[in-house]
């Protein structure tokens, strides 16, 4: 177990795709092209529609499970065995993005369930050191964070 202090010092893997945003909880770091009115995750260097550089846009990590699966074989990256992944439809941006799902939720996962982004210690980085990762966690049906 890590104390909060230790967690603060762990690196986030992968770099630059999520961040804590104060009171609203973690967000995904995406991009937005005002010209094409398109959102992206992650943020590309150029908008593929018009080749202008997209602005940074912080994307809400609230969404709904579009599909999920449980990986039961020996996991890569020091992830738990088993671990879960899925595609999540983000409520605000409409993007459908791949991500880790909370392995504590494995027995309760279902398509259509609501999830929220979290950042926490999860697995190891390429050098075998403990690290933080973004993952989606089930939200209680009433809308309260569990």
């Amino acid at each position: 177990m890590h104390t909060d202090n230790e967690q603060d010092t762990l690196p986030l893997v992968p770099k630059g795709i999520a961040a804590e945003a104060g009171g609203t909880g973690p967000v995904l770091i995406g991009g937005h092209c005002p010209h094409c009115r398109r959102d992206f995750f992650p943020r590309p260097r150029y908008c593929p529609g018009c080749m202008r550089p997209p602005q940074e846009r912080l994307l809400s990590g609230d969404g709904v499970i579009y599909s999920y699966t449980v990986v039961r074989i020996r996991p890569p990256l020091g992830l738990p065995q088993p671990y879960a992944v899925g595609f999540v439809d983000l409520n605000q941006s409409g993007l459908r993005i791949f991500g880790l799902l909370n392995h504590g939720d494995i027995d309760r996962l279902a398509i259509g369930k609501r999830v929220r982004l979290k950042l926490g210690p999860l697995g190891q980085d390429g050098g075998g050191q403990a690290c933080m990762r973004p993952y989606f966690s089930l939200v209680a049906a009433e809308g309260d964070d569990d």
Partner: protein
Amino acid sequence: MTKPVVAGVGMIPFAKYPQRTLVDLGAEAAFLALQDANVAPGRVEAGFFANAVGSRLFGDSTIGQNVLWEVGVNRVPVINVENACTSGSTAFYLACNAVAAGQAEMALVVGAEKMCVPEFGLINSGESEWDTQLGLVAPASFALRAQRHMLEHGTTVEQMAQVAVKNRAHAAGNPMAMFREPITVEQVLAAPMIVDPLTRLQCCPIADGAAALVVCSEEMARGLGSAAVRVEAVVLGTGGYESPQDLARWETDFRVCAQAYEKAGLGPEDLDLVECHDAFTISEILHYEALGLCPPGDGGRFVEQGHATLGGRVPVNPSGGLLSRGHPVGATGVAQVMEVVSQLRGQAGPRQINGARIGLAHCMGGDKAGDTKSCTVAILGI
């Protein structure tokens, strides 16, 4: 533009070859293809060598020159091709284009892979990709598609298992296949769960192996006396990578298949057989739909009703497919074309489809943003 033909084929059985090198495997397949075409290596004007993981596993590079030198092909352009699971079919695509454009009258395509080594692990879409860093492995991509297909179309795990059972039954007639013992739906479903709902027998096995093709102009083929098979169309497409992707209806798959039919002036009703990229059981079901063998959503019922079985409406993967032949990545796309050629020549032995005139080879590779990195379709005729 001259029409390319396949004038020679060769492969070694897909298996584990711990004592042999990658170059050795590739050279034997190349030798067999040249021998089958009845040509001397000096007539080959370009070489295309496909390999996907040799650089990662062994630190090797520009392997094609080593392989082709072993069979007397030198001094000519040699291109090394890496395009994930479509490495071999991409090499074939490039060779056909070179012949069609008149850049080479004869080209040699070799696909080879040696991957049965300790700690190979799982295929992913690149170690430094952000989704790989979040635990995306190849079987998970397809499990996520399976979950959607089951939800939207009522596809069952038994129907998916039928793909593995059928392809294993087909492999019984193919001495090149790695696994030839029959299996049952019950065995497939009772196998260890890899990634829900895909069990181990629903995931293609890694293998070592090599396959090769001699591609040349129709004019040159006439002088060789071997049974040449026409390439009616060969196309390669990549994904759009836009969000949201529909995981149950693969836009890139549909689009590339449609391009191939249009270019060949043929349709799914013309096909006597299909070799497709059954990396996982659900993959083959998705490809039935993209290829227009059945309406979208009906792939599970299509295999259940026996339409894809030898003797059925359109036999799919008469070779046993990746699921039973094994999947030495760089060799697979070449072996698929070889199976189609063997069927059209009437040389497929106990798995021969009588009177086959038109066949299709379909391959897919890599993963990006819920889409494929590469999809190839070749339609061949005799």
